[in-house]
């Protein structure tokens, strides 16, 4: 574990790589709350209320942190370099100046220490929000997360709550060195006791983080770092919206195939859907948003409409979240399926060197290839 050198700290410019070019369509269904929402294509855009602003995802996360700190004295942030520096991605920019040392805590460089002490703070009545600097550096804390944090409520018979949020920038496509581009979500999703969410838009980043901080359960909040600088409208909530943690969104309606994705690959799926539309294929895109629990009713309802399904994520497909989606779709929607459910994702290799990552990451072309195979079945 090491602090990345300056060269690893991305400048606040659009990320390179698998994310779509600026101007790619924002997720239209990004309403803040409620059950599965469906945004009809071409629906008239409502006039934005006064408290709507255009923010990059990093700014939306910053705003959610600020609103949570302001709204509850028990909320505090902990992490490496999150104080005066504002974090290596500047996500906590300005919060130290506004809320001070006691609430925006620059910790020693020890991830197990960050999560372990966060658990103790939670036992003492606080709501710590931990920042892990990069995905690949979460593993020193893996023991505390899986053996302690995930089990505390259970082993105490419900007497002890540990409302800890762990923010982890994850995913690749930014040309980084080893340990800075990984997608470890399946390792956490396999652990009972944790909730896992990941936004794909600034609005979802805001809503999901506020809900995660308000939740009595521990939440792993995965931030698609390749999307940090993509912009969208964000409507601030006076209080965290209820019921947003466990819900998927249908972000594009379609009739021929369902593309299931989350975090960084929602943009990839939407781009693929654009291309498919020009070829006469209507793809529906589901943004899972929550990986534990999975909003299976939303996915299955979509597959029942389309009869075909392709799951897209950056993480290795073997033993992954997509494998769980495939399994459940096959169990629940078998008679609706016109083709086997396919996966597009990373390979069973360590995350490769940056010069090869675009061959590793699920590109629009690889999604189109999978859709072709599904349609041809």
């Amino acid at each position, binding site marked *: 574990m090491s602090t990345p050198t300056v060269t690893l700290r991305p400048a606040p410019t659009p990320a390179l790589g698998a994310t779509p070019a600026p101007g790619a369509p924002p997720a239209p269904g990004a309403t803040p709350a409620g059950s599965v929402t469906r945004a009809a294509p071409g629906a008239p855009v409502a006039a934005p209320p006064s408290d709507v602003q255009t923010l990059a995802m990093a700014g939306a996360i910053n705003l959610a942190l600020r609103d949570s700190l302001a709204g509850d004295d028990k909320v*505090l942030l902990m992490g490496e370099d999150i104080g005066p520096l504002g974090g290596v991605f500047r996500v906590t920019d300005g919060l130290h100046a506004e809320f001070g040392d*006691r609430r925006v805590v620059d*910790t*020693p460089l*020890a991830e*197990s*220490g960050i999560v*372990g*002490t*966060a*658990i*103790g*703070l*939670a*036992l*003492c*009545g*606080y709501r*710590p929000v931990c920042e892990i600097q990069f995905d690949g550096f979460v593993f*020193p804390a893996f*023991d*505390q997360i899986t*053996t*302690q944090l995930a*089990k505390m*409520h*259970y*082993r*105490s*018979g*419900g*007497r*002890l*709550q540990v409302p800890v949020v762990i923010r982890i920038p994850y995913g690749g496509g930014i040309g980084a060195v080893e340990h800075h581009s990984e997608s470890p979500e399946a390792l956490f999703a396999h652990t*009972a*006791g944790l*909730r896992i969410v990941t936004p794909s838009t600034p609005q979802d980043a805001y809503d999901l983080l506020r809900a995660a901080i308000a*939740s*009595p*359960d521990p939440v792993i909040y995965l931030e698609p770092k390749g999307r940090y600088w993509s912009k969208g409208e964000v409507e601030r909530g006076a209080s965290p919206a209820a019921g947003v943690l*466990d819900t998927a969104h249908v972000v594009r309606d379609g009739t021929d195939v369902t593309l299931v994705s989350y975090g960084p690959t929602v943009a990839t799926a939407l781009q693929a859907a654009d291309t498919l539309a020009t070829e006469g294929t209507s793809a529906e895109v589901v943004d899972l948003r929550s990986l*534990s*629990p*999975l*909003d*299976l009713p939303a996915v299955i309802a979509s597959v029942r409409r389309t009869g075909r399904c392709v799951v897209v994520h950056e993480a290795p497909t073997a033993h992954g979240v997509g494998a769980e989606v495939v399994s459940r779709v096959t169990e629940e929607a078998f008679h609706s399926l016109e083709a086997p459910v396919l996966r597009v994702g990373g390979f069973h290799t360590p995350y490769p060197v940056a010069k090869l990552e675009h061959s590793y990451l699920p590109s629009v072309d690889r999604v189109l290839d999978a859709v072709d195979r599904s349609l041809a079945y």
Partner: protein
Amino acid sequence: MTEGCAGEEGLIQLLDKDGVRVSTPENEAYRDQAAGVDGEDLRAMYRAMLLTRRFDDEATSLQRQGELALFAQARGQEAAQVGSAFALAPQDYVFPSYREHGVLEVRGVDPVDRLRLFRGVDHGGWDPAEHNAHLYTLVLGSQVLHATGYAMGIQRDGLVGTGDPARDRAVVVYFGDGTTSQGDVHEAMVFAAVNNAPQVFFLQNNQWAISEPTSRQTRVPLADRGLGYGIPSVRVDGNDVLACYAATLDALERAHSGGGPTLVEAFTYRMGAHTTSDDPTRYREAAEEEHWARRDPIDRLAALLRAEGEWDQEWAAALDAESDALGERLRTEVRLLGAPPAGSMFEHVYATEHATVAEERAWMAEYEQFEEANP
């Protein structure tokens, strides 16, 4: 290879191995801390130590009879545990590992509840808030970081250095010599030191980490490690209940007043096996066990009580009867702790509903109903 780890030399002692009070320039500050301990207090400590020993013996028998899956004795460590626990203010919070039966005796955790985990009917067993005593932690060193975090919470609550002894709070965390090798202990000391956290690191060095002697963990006395973090540290005779009490009280006063963390190494001996699954005859000598049997902490306190005219025959007889009643109660009530219903495994996985758990719980209920209807 043991010379670097110190041993019995240089320990702060208030009672020698025969229970005679020791007066040296080195222990003067600790004598002052223990000055308020009167005969009644000593008898209360003795009672807690004796009941802890009885608890150990009964639990070990229950395990041998197949009534417990496993048990880890505190045998030999009663002075370290009871002495340190007597120094706690009611509002202080303790994090045990899994062997601190003496600490939990003093904190008033019901002895039957302490065996729920070992019986296999609960992963916890009591309400931590009711006793200001956290649950047992089985992963080595995890609780040391939790304690540091809790202490950081106390700081934020403004309950350090208020000058009001009924309000100032601190945390005492218990861990052993083997656990000092865990990274979490290192990280906890780093976090506690830089945050000046109101925390006492109470290290019971019982000289054995299952089969590994302390020389497999360290080349220096473990208390010396504290100095590297800037944490004041002291080595005390862990079989001397007064020294353990005084050193913990001293550390707690520092924590309460805003002076930050302290490391107390209580040098003691694990008189029993690591757990009921262990066999110490494979790795240590009978002569060593005999050496330490002559340093039994309970005998030492009994000798002091007798020498100072505080041993009351009637009191001792009543205590024996209380101990027998405890044994009887454990033998009866532990056997009555039945398996919880299968559906309870789905309870409290989350504090709020989780679709996967809800679905699997419903499946299990339906499956069980079917099994019942179709035996």
